[in-house]
């Protein structure tokens, strides 16, 4: 029997990609939501920034759900 290098490679690529993607989404949404709050405090409208921030947060959650969906055999 041979060693399954491909499986190790998949783990490496998928894990790092998922982690980095999740963090980009999370950090960007934190940045946007903060910017929205600053804007609101200055009396400006921040609807776009706010909704953009929340949708990125939603995307991050979706990413996690999708990854879990991928590993559960009952869904396939």
């Amino acid at each position, binding site marked *: 029997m041979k060693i399954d290098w491909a499986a190790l490679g998949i783990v490496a690529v998928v894990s790092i990609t998922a982690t980095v993607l999740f963090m980009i989404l999370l950090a960007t949404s*934190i*940045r946007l939501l*903060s910017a929205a*709050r600053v804007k609101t405090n200055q009396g400006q409208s921040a609807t776009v920034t706010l909704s953009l921030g929340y949708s990125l947060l939603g995307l991050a959650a979706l990413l996690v759900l999708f990854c879990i969906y991928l590993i559960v055999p009952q869904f396939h």
Partner: protein
Amino acid sequence: MGSDVTELFVVIAVVMVALIFDFTNGFHDSANAMAGPVATGALRPRTAVILAAVLNLVGACLSTEVAKTISGGFFDEELITVSIILAGLVGAIIWNLLTWLLGLPSSSSHALFGGLIGAVIVGAGFASVHGWVIVSKVLLPAIVAPLVAGIGAALATMLAYRITRRTPSGHSNTGFKYGQAFTASLVALAHGTSDGQKTMGVITLVLIAANLQPPDTGPQPWVILSAGIAIGLGTYSGGWRIMRMLGKGVVEIETPQGAASGAASTATILSSAHLGFGLSTTHVATGSILGSGVGRRDAEVRWGVARKMVFAWLLTLPGSGLVGGAAGLLANRGLAGVIALLVLLAGTCLVIWAFSRPNKISRHNVTDSREVLVLASPRQAEYVNDPRGDAVTKPKKNKKHKAKSAA
């Protein structure tokens, strides 16, 4: 005469011992995942403990790939007997207790694998161990997965700080606080998936060995559920440790680092579990914590502590293998040997308990024995990592603290 009854007795004993092993695993691990968000105030202790326990149970039901690796991949199922598996489990538990007493950071997952391998070699010969499967699904992932988690956490930490560079620190702190609570919950889920399955694999292996289940099949629903419940209950009763860590005023690594390392651990553990790798969750978590230290410029990483952990990890497989092999010698002697093994297990627990008493393991020196991996900054307190990782059993302290917190 009565060999069926004997076998049934041994099967039940193994299932019980395996579930206890599972319980102690949850008891030991998941509180660690939740200590971060509790310390930052993102979750209340009670919420965190219940959440971790439930997610452990849910996680255990998610996948059975690791269980299948253990029950169907490691060993030649034809040659495995029930008593060999009992010997493996006893070897793993005794090794865990010994390393716990000596303060060695040892992985209970690797102790389990080592114990089983040792017992199988003694009981059924070298040929019955599928060496390549073990290299491919345990040894290599043990090296690769922590590295992957570390790289992921380092990259994510760097990105987190870079993206929120101009964000007011109050805002980003609050944001990452909840991010950290979220990823810590995911770690609890992944922990259930990865470690819960090891127990399922062992129980399934026993059922196959006792001809109660056909070879090459996965764990049965009741096995999945009871393993999930055992690890969840363990997590729930281990929750007091969070209070203790808080009581000592232990401050975390910064919240972006916590969020990053949690995300990296989760991604690595879940993807590895999906491919049937028998990982130690503690190894991965340690890798990502180190990575989150590397990813932040002004954080101080204690490489000496990391090195010590690596040595302990290297020792675990052969060490527990030897203990498992010795137990295998006993287990081969029929019912008398099996009973002797169970008595020996109980005796060892008692002796080690007695030995640890003079050291008075109280809340003070327990936290002292934890080792610092990453210092957030000189002024801040340190992130404290459990050196024994997912090592098994600290029942005594649990009772003490339960009594205390109840009082």
